[in-house]
């Protein structure tokens, strides 16, 4: 039940929480700031990362955990000594997924940040859509390339994990 509750967190359109989130950030005194944006991404990244880790851990055979339990290991001991050492791949998946998602995010960036706190996607959008002055396509395209480059690098370096992240929810879910 808890899992499906969290799963819904992955699928809601984030527009539905914009206004309350803005109010909350305002109440916390971190609206339009970088820390506010960070908090938003943490909160709504939780659903995805939980999904990833959960889907990874269900593939671990129960016998492994039971054996450790019989050997007297407690919850945290099992976690540190057994689960964590085999979790490296899913950590990579989560990190890459979150990196690309946050880098590519536009909605939260445009709503919850202003001025110099804006992420690059918002800046690119503003740059390209300025109607004043002469269009400088070279500058615009350079900006687009810069905006696309980090994800390209991440993707080329760890495409396998990226792929796993993309398909984590859909195939095993």
């Amino acid at each position: 039940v808890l899992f499906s509750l969290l799963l819904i967190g992955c699928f809601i359109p984030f527009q539905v929480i914009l206004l309350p989130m803005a109010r909350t950030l305002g109440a916390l005194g971190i609206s339009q700031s970088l820390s506010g944006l960070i908090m938003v991404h943490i909160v709504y990244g939780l659903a995805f990362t939980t999904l990833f880790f959960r889907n990874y851990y269900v593939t671990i055979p129960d016998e492994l955990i039971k054996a450790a339990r019989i050997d007297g290991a407690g919850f945290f001991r099992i976690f540190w000594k057994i689960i964590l050492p085999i979790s490296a791949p899913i950590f990579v998946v989560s990190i890459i997924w979150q990196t690309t998602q946050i880098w590519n995010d536009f909605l939260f960036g445009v709503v919850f940040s202003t001025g110099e706190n804006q992420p690059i996607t918002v800046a690119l959008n503003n740059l390209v859509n300025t109607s004043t002055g002469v269009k400088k396509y070279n500058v615009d395209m350079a900006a687009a390339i810069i905006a696309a480059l980090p994800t390209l690098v991440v993707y080329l370096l760890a495409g396998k994990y990226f792929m796993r992240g993309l398909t984590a929810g859909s195939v095993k879910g």
Partner: protein
Amino acid sequence: MTDSPHTKQYPRRSFMDVLEIVVPKVVLAPTTIAALLFVYGFILWTAWISFTKSRLLPRYEFAGFYQYIKLFTNDRWWVASKNLLIFGGLFVVLCILIGLLLAILLDQRIRAEGALRTIYLYPMALSFIVTGTAWKWILNPGLGLERLVHQMGFTDFTFDWLVDPEMAIYTVVIAGVWQSSGFVMALFLAGCAASTTPSSRPPRWTVPACRASTGGSSSPVCARSFSARSSFCPHRHQELRPGGRPHPRRPRLCLGSAGHLHVRLRLHPQPAGLWRRQRHGDAGRVMAIIIPYLYSELRQVQWIKRPESAQKPNAGQCRPRQAVHLQPADPFGPLFPGAPFRHGPHIGQEHGGHPHRQPDLHALGHHLRCLERGLEQRLHRWSAAGASVTISGTPSGSPSRGRSSPPSSGRSTGTSFPSGVFAEARCFFPCC
């Protein structure tokens, strides 16, 4: 009463035991609270505000459906809804179609599969903003595609969807499909891989033609595999006998001018264990072809073209076991349109891949009567349909073959076709 002392022996739950039960819940609590608060709480909050008189700032006075009525009487809302319908429908349909097509094409064991997959999937790693910006330039009539075609000389060409209010939504579809169809492809590929890797599952893609039952065989094989035995007898005609019965047609498998291949079929179902043995890993790999044999043995099929000097010393005599593996690259051959096609895997050795060690030879008996149209062509088409084809010769001497000594003319033209070789055509249809 005998139970009560027994039950009393159970120790009470100690503090540590309770802790063991509680701790996982405690660990999970922050995430749960965050999800409840920031997802469900905020959804409810938004819903509540929608029923109030709020304007720029929230005013928590209940107003019923006032805001909804305002919304539904707003023309722009309906325009947006219609656009969403167009975009959503086309986006989903096109993404699935293109993604499936890409997945099928990529799943043919083609060269550079990984690189292509990487390329197709990369747009998914891009930001929507970048995609939108780039496509805006591409579709811009004065800047992108239209200008390019104009500069190529086709000045009549117009592609101005981007500035056409009626068509602009379709440009969004183009960009969206470009971004996501690679992802859909990846999903299809992942689903396909998931369906074949667990050893217990039957193959997802089966060739319909070989789905006929195999009598008592309980093997989950692509249901029917046959061993076809064909005897190669240059310049002799022999009847094709599926299942031992005389076949009405006479197969004449011309191996060039010098020899004919005559086929005699014997069909027998394949034991279940064989399939299991062969199904390790990717099914396509299992049925795969042994490439080192491909070249050398293909040359031996064309015996007539080889000079006498090139023959093996035992040419014309009983030939030791031979294997021919054909796997031409001809996706979606006419035999089984739609059948998954695989070619070129340099694998198979790990399954004891040498056919000599696989006593059970399979063929698609149902199609073997087509052998009359020429062995090579037939095997080509089988392979095109996704089958791996093996022809292996066994030492002659079987009473069921025909006259064993080839006519002298066959030898004079340089054929090394063994005098009376039992050959077995092996054909197997790999599954996805």
